[in-house]
């Protein structure tokens, strides 16, 4: 079936550095999402993105976070600067329509030291 690819699968960085998580969504999908899952906790919504704009973001989407999808390439989540509490697995998802099925990637595990 359709696949969402995430790169990298795991990244370890020092606190204060910048990190970019990349997502290659399903090719004809229009809506894109990032979710955050801290180990042992609930998956939580960060942000959704449509037509080049952030449509909605949660309180977890701090000012240090940004998303973009330049020229229809990767959908990226950038964190600058990173903090210890940013350590988590970040899941990208995409959907074709607003209430359609979401397809999730395998997650990018971020460890901030």
């Amino acid at each position, binding site marked *: 079936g359709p696949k*969402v690819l*995430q790169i990298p699968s795991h990244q370890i960085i020092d606190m204060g550095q910048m990190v970019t998580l990349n997502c290659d969504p399903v090719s004809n999908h229009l*809506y*894109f*999402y990032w*979710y955050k899952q801290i180990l042992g*906790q*609930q*998956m*939580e*919504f960060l942000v*959704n*993105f*449509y037509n080049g704009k952030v*449509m*909605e973001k*949660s309180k977890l989407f701090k000012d240090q976070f940004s998303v973009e999808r330049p020229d229809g390439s990767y959908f990226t989540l950038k964190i600058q600067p990173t903090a210890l509490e940013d350590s988590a697995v970040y*899941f990208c*998802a995409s*959907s074709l329509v*607003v*209430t359609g*099925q*979401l*397809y*999730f*990637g*395998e*997650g990018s595990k971020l460890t901030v030291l």
Partner: protein
Amino acid sequence: AQSVTQPDARVTVSEGASLQLRCKYSYSGTPYLFWYVQYPRQGLQLLLKYYSGDPVVQGVNGFEAEFSKSNSSFHLRKASVHWSDSAVYFCVLSAGNTEGADRLTFGKGTQLIIQP
């Protein structure tokens, strides 16, 4: 605000036995409900979904779920589990926001362990 509760963090079942994973939701409107499964080192995969109509919905691999508005529940069932069903199962609610891209509310997940 909506919420999803999966009261069991871990469920252990013998292979071949029946299964029920519980899910309760809280939402004032009409919910869209999903069950997703996450196998080790893989992304979440959709098992089944409920939008409207017949409250019992069939999914992949013999799973089904029953929506109950009166109980605010969407329990997942399977008649006979297989060792390959070992995974984490998430109950998920969508408010069906048609004005923009949707956000999902996840339960904490239930880890299913199948004993031989």
